[in-house]
Each structure stands twice: as C-alpha cells, then as structure tokens.
C-alpha cells in the first residue's frame, strides 16, 4: 500500500516526459504553419514549385533523348514433327532435314531484336540482330544495319535514301516481317531466289503520292546467305532492282524487276549467268460482318537464273588438288542458265478477335525445260492470339515433289506439322 502513491507519481512524471517532446513538436509545426500563412517565408513555396518545374523540364529533356531509341523484337519457339516417321523432311531450321532419328524437335526459329535511333526527322539508324540456334552455332547474327536519310524539302520527309544491309526491295513477302506472317515460312520460290532476303547496297524510296510509290536499289547481288558474303563480291558490276507499287488500301499491287549477273569462277574462263527476275503481286482485303477481316494475296516470280541443280551436274566442285571448280568435259555452260517460275496464292481469314485461318498454295519450277523438278505445296494454319503480343500457330505443310524411286517417280512422305509460339514486343 505504501508503494502505491509513489508508483502513481512516477507514472505521472513518466507520462509528462514522454508527451513533452510531442507537444513541443506539435507546437513548432503549428508555429511554422502560422508563420507561413502570415508570410514569414513567402518565397519558399513558389521557389520550390519553380525548382520542381525546372527539374521536370530537365527530366523531360532527358526523356525526349531516350525516346529516340526504340527497341523491338520477337522470339519464335517452334516444335516440328514429321507426319510420317519413316521419311526425311526438308525444314526451314537447322539441321535442314528432319530424319527418322530426329523427327520431333523443339528449336528457336528466330530470336530477334532491333534497335532504331531516330536522331532527327531527317535521319535514322537501324541495327537488327538474330539470335537463332543454327545447329550448335548460337552466335548472334547481324541481319540488318542501315542508315536512312529523309528529304528536307517535303513536309513529311517522305523521300528516303537508305544505305547499308537491308531487305531486297522486290515483291511483297520479302519485306514483310516474319513476325507478321500467318504461316511459319515464306514461299519456296522466294526462299530459293532471294535466300536470306537481305543484301548490301543503297536504295531510294519515293512515295510520289499517298497511292504511288517507287523503289530503286543497287546491290552487291549475292545476298547474306551466299557463301562468299560478305568478304567477296566476285562481280564489280552490281545488281539493280526497281519496283512500282499502287497502294489502294483495299487493293494493293506492285510490279518488280531485278537484273544482275552471277559469275562462276572456273579453271579457265569464268562463266557468267544472267540473273533476271520479274515479279508481280497483289493483295485484296475485305471484311465479313460476322467473322472479321480477310485477304486474298498472290505473287508471281519468273525469269532466268543460275540453277543450283544444273551447276551441281555440270560443274566439278573444287578439290585440294584443283582449288578452282571445273566444267565437266562436254558440258555446255549455257545450260547453267535456266528459266524458272514460281509463286503463291494465299487466303487469310480472321475468325473473331482471337483466331485466324490461313491457307496457301505455292509452287516453284527451277527449270521450266525439265520435268520432275517442280515443287508444290499446300499449307494450312491457324493462329490463336493469346494477347496483343503473343500468338500460337499450328500449321500443316503438304509438299509435293517427285523423287526417283526405282524406275518411276513418287511423292515422298514429307508432310510436316509445326507448332510455334511467338512473342513480339
């Protein structure tokens, strides 16, 4: 009992000691508020706002510089399987043939990123890399590197001169990004005639009106997939292209021309083969009320070319003893130059917002004078768009070729299923 008053007294002092600093702080805050209201430090708030505005302007300026860089890219993860496990199937990746021992596989078809720098409205630079897996090679490949100068005399700077490594301006499907394609691969004719799709040179793009555009280019002529690229361009003469496009919106169409020379270094006189390609393409777009948009497309390639099959037959490849190729005895070099034709027709139909159906018939005849060398293919595909960036493609390819079996020709069992997941940013 005697301790109780003492204890109560200690508690009062303890409480007073604890609350005193709080009270002092509170009073100080109140006093500061009063003095501000009374104008004791009238410049502080506007000064702070001005300082913040200056800071914001600095940040905005820095942000504007960063906005000149644009990163974009996409990844395609693919699963391929041969429909029949007992045959060899030519595919687009590496290894380029799916065999019975390797008839189901996952691989990275494309892993690409692009860096664009818009220095000013009058110039732009682009670097574009591919990180695909070509067999055991997992190196980064430079796909494109170019700079573009825009004209200063039109208000929208629409005339452009590009120099560097870029897509060959021919036809329609070459310049269309693989990330947009409704079926996994381009047509066979394009794959053979413009392997790699890119070359080095300069090009001039002139949109004369919103509906008419012309493009001319001068190129090395050997493309990035050629064995001699980029260290050797055996011809001092350059290839050139020209294309005129009509852009109607509902109907687009273009005509293209490519002219160049392929030189085959041989022991003795080299052989030169004319490389001429004439192309035409058209795309028609429509809309079905209950389904959505659709398109019909077609493209044709005709011309003369060095036929790889002919060169394999007529030319003895280099050996250690004879490092330069030889023409086989009795072979007529004019037979190396063959006329070809190829192309495709395609139908794409959106089915609501999430689905898309695609079908294509494509063909390529590398030598119109020969039989049994033609390639034909029917491809079907469905795209499912998971979100604005990701889609799943299920495609089925039915190629038709003639393979010599015994005394006759048969179409091999080489149908292919492809399942591809793509994310694009």
């Amino acid at each position, binding site marked *: 009992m005697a301790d109780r008053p003492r204890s109560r007294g200690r508690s009062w002092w303890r409480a007073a000691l604890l609350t005193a600093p709080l009270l002092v702080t509170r009073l100080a805050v109140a006093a500061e508020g009063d003095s501000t209201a009374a104008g004791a430090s009238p410049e502080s708030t506007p000064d702070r706002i001005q300082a913040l505005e200056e800071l914001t302007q600095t940040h905005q300026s820095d942000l504007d510089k960063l906005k000149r860089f644009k990163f974009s890219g996409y990844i395609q993860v693919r699963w391929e399987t041969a429909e029949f496990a007992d045959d060899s199937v030519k595919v687009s990746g590496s290894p380029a043939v799916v065999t019975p021992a390797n008839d189901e596989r996952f691989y990275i078809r494309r892993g690409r990123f692009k860096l664009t720098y818009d220095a000013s409205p009058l110039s732009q630079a682009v670097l574009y890399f591919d990180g695909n897996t070509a067999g055991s090679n997992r190196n980064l490949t430079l796909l494109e590197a170019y700079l573009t100068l825009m004209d200063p005399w039109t208000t929208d700077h629409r005339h452009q001169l590009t120099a560097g490594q870029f897509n060959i301006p021919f036809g329609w499907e070459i310049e269309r990004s693989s990330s947009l394609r409704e079926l996994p691969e381009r047509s066979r004719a394009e794959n053979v005639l413009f392997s790699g799709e890119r070359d080095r040179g300069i090009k001039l793009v002139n949109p004369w009106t919103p509906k008419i555009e012309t493009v001319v280019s001068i190129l090395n002529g050997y493309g990035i997939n050629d064995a001699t690229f980029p260290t050797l361009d055996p011809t001092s003469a350059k290839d050139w292209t020209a294309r005129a496009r009509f852009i109607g919106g509902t109907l687009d169409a273009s005509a293209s021309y490519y002219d160049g020379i392929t030189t085959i270094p041989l022991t003795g006189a080299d052989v030169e083969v004319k490389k001429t390609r004439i192309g035409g393409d058209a795309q028609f777009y429509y*809309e079905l009320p209950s389904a959505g948009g659709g398109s019909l497309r077609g493209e044709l390639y005709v011309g003369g070319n060095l036929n790889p099959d002919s060169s394999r037959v007529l030319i003895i490849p280099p050996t250690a003893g004879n490092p330069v190729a030889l023409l086989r005895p009795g072979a007529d070099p004019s037979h190396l130059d063959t006329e070809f034709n190829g192309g495709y027709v395609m139908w794409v139909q959106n089915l609501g917002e999430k689905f898309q159906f695609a079908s294509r018939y494509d063909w390529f005849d590398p030598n119109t004078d020969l039989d049994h060398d033609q390639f034909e293919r029917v491809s079907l595909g469905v795209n499912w768009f998971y979100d604005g960036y990701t889609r799943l493609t299920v495609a089925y390819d039915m190629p038709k070729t003639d393979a010599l079996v015994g005394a006759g020709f048969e179409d091999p069992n080489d149908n292919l299923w492809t399942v591809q997941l793509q994310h694009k940013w």
Partner: protein
Amino acid sequence: MRMRRIVGMAALAACMGFAPAWAARGITIKGSDTMVILGQRWAETYMNGHPGSVIQVTGGGSGTGIAALINGTTDICQASRPMKEDEKRKLRDRYQTMGTEIPVAKDGLSIYVHESNPVKDLSIAQLKQIYTGQVASWKVLGGADAPIILYGRENNSGTYVYFKDNVLQGEDYSARVQTLPGTAAVVNAVGRDPNGIGYGGAAYGKGVRELAVKKDAGSPAIKPTAATVQDGSYPITRYLYFYTRTKPGGPVKQFVDWVLSAEGQKLASQVGYFPVR
C-alpha cells in the same frame, strides 16, 4: 497419336478465347486526352440509360489509344487526329482490315494566351513562326516586349500531331516548347503565365483567352465559336474520331449509334465540342 495431340492443343486454345473482348469486360474506350471528358460524359449518360452496360473510358493520348486498338486491349479508340498510314498498315497486318473511322464530334483547335495579353489574333503563318522558334518575342506580334513562352502537348497526343501537320505544316516544334501531359495542364500553365501561349481543344478554354485565327495575313480573324467551327470558317477545325478494328457490332454498335444520335450529339455540345450531325 501425333494428330490427336495437335488437335487437342488447338481445342484447348479454342476454349480459351473465342468470345469477343467486350463480352468479358464491357466496352473499353481509350485514347485522346482531348476527348477523355467527352467520352466519360457519353459513357456515364449511356450507362444511366442502359442498365447493365459497362463502359470504361481512359486517356493516354491518341497514339496510345491507336496502339491499344492494334494490340486488342481496347474496343474503341478515341482519336483527335486521323490514323496514320503506318498505323493502318499495322492494323491490317493483324486484323486484315483498315479499321473503321467514325467522326463523332467537331472541334476548333483553340490558341490560348493569358487574359492580360494584348494580342487579339494571329495568322496560321505567325503561329508556325512562333512554334518553330522563328519568332520569340511578343513585341514582333504587337504585344509586350517579353519572350513568348511556348506550351504544348507530348508527341503521343493527337492534338500535337494535328497541330504539327496543319499549323506547322510538318515542320518540327521548337526545342523551347514545354510539353505537358494534357490540355488541362496547358490551359493551367497559360492561365498562370502572362507571356505564355498554348493550344488545345475548344472545350478546355477556361481562365485563358482564345485568340482569333486568320487563315493568312489577308483573311479575317475568326474566333472558334459553334458557328465558325460548324461552317468550317475557323481555320483550325478538326474532327474527333472513334476507331474500331472492324465494323462495329453488338453492344459497341449500339453505343456508337447512341453517340451519333441527337442525344449523344447534344452532349458533345454541352461539353464544349460541336456536333457532326
């Protein structure tokens, strides 16, 4: 066996996403900051009159709205400028359509100055000189001997693009333009700055003075009013748009039809814009 596996995967995908987006989350509208108040008023009034309907409206700028339309994250894009050719191409690459453009209101792009500014009108050529940095003092234009402080919009804004295309005739803005995130911010900045000048939608011009604009030096100066915007005599008159990926159907069509009805257009006038019908 393989066939079954592939068909199974396709069936799974089908189950996960055939329904249209608006069926799951109502109608989404995204885009122009100029139109965001107008869109919200339309949505509120429509939802009041159509119980059960859900419409979400957000801004971000016309460019942002068009990107969302292409990515499939909005049903309707509000834009204060027409779509560019490369935007139409992206839409066509994904949906095989050019998009559907629906003009839903008209706007007089107003030029704001501080209420104390003695300058009453400017020609398009003078505006171009001001915003490209060739004229930097109000004195040259008959005003005070003071620098012109430029306020403008960010480059994802449709108003930014429209002003650049139609007033600057494609030339670049001066580096001295202070970019602000919305028309309200531009009006607020000009309202506090006696030397400031800004541009934006007619509906926002409160607390500032809107200048009369001359098509060229010899033309009469026209103020942005209902009559001058409607008859097109105000030189910086533009349409405000809805964009959809395909021709509108279902609830989206019902909403668009209502916006274009007498009731929807009356609401546009009340907000400060001008009807298209």
